Each structure stands twice: as C-alpha cells, then as structure tokens.
C-alpha cells in the first residue's frame, strides 16, 4: 500500500477540528520526521511515539526535539512483537537523556496522556 497517506501533515486538520482529542502519531513519522515534529509543536494535542524503532535508529532531529522543546511530546513505544522491549531500549544510555527527559519519555508522557482522566 502507498505510504503517502501516512504523512504526519494529515493530522494537522484533525488536530484543528478536534482540539479536545489527544492524538499520538505512531512510528515517529519517518521519513517525514521534521513534519511530525512540526505538527506536534504546532498543536497542544498532538504527540509522537517511537514504536517500530530501536533507540539506535531514532532520527537525530527527534532526539533533539525530545531533549528540548518536545520533552512533553514524545512517548516510548516498541510495536512489540515486531521489536522486543529489551532490544528497543538497548542503546538508551547513548541518548544521554537527563533524568527529567528520561522520565517523561519512558513513562510520564504516556501516564499523562492515557492514564489521567480529565
């Protein structure tokens, strides 16, 4: 099937129409990573998860985003059973995330988005 309909930019209209809806874009949005970052930056209700990627394959622009202004916006995911959690997280230390970013990425953002009832 074609990949183009999966472009992150198509979430822009959904996010505009439904600002109350929390939207998590899966699988990073590669190869449109900057586009995914742009949509997540623009909209308070849009987030990105890292499923289908091992840590060593995260695009550098996503890592920069996670460490900086996107620290509340990126969620850890595996797409298990495609990738086993242990393999996904093998190179986690190489990201050199500070404690706050690490906590938000690995669980804090997911807890806030999925597990806190508004």
């Amino acid at each position, binding site marked *: 099937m074609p990949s183009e*309909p*999966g472009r992150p930019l*198509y979430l822009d209209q959904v996010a505009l129409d439904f600002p109350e809806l929390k939207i998590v874009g899966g699988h990073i949005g590669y190869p449109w990573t900057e586009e995914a970052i742009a949509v997540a930056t623009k909209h308070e209700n849009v987030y990105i*998860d890292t499923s289908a990627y091992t840590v060593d394959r995260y695009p550098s622009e996503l890592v920069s985003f996670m460490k900086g202004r996107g620290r509340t916006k990126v969620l850890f995911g595996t797409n298990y059973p495609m990738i*086993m*959690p242990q393999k996904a997280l093998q190179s986690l230390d190489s990201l050199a995330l500070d404690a706050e970013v690490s906590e938000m990425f*690995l*669980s804090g953002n997911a807890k806030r988005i*999925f597990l806190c009832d508004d």
Partner: protein
Amino acid sequence: MIIDAWAQHPTLRHINDPIFDSLRRWTKIPTPTSEIPVSMTLGMMDSGGVDKSLISAWVGPGKVMISNDEVASFVAEAPDRLIGVGSVDISKPMKAVQEIRRCDNELGFKAIRVLPLALGSSANRPTFLPCFHCMC
C-alpha cells in the same frame, strides 16, 4: 517506570497475516503455530524492564486480527501490567462509533488506535469525523 505506548499481544491470525510478510522477512520473527500465552508477553516486558504496555486490538475492513474482546481478556490476565487500546473499522463510521463507546464504557480501554493508512487513506478523510468526535 517504563510504559510501552504501542504494542500488541499477538494472536496467530495477527502474527501470521500476509501484511506482515515483509516485516517477518526483515526481522526474522519465527512463525508460531500455537496461540501465544499472555505470560510470554509479560516475560518480554520483564526482560526489557517495561512495567506497563498499551496493547491494541487490530480491526480492519473484513478482517479482525485481534478483537477488542480478545484484548480485554488479555488485559484481565494482568490488569496491573496491560492497558487496553481498541480498534475499529473506521470505514464504517456508525458501527465504529458504537464499538468505540463499548471499548470505553464496557471494556475499560484507555485509547483507540486508528489506522487510516490501512485503508489507503489519510487521517483527514471526512468519513472518519464521527469516530474522532466520539473519541474526544
């Protein structure tokens, strides 16, 4: 704590579906022949230090690879570790809305996973609007 935001506890129908053929070739996942116990998924989570996983159903037009009821049964085996995510056929918006409500009100799911790409469609197609409205 580590939470995995996108996972599936696979059924045989899911893991052996032809749409994953290229993925199986690439990742060299062996083809199982019997249903995989939830304990195996929990064991994999333990190996990776993952405390909780959001496990999703997988429903598409004419195809239910992992049903919402199956996900509910997996979650029931380990409710402190697994969190249910529903899936609906978004090409049938009225039925999809009913099922989204069931996932929320009866099955206790915390999210719905929507795969417009599986329909060859982008997320901003008008057909999907009732589902997005219902999910707010």
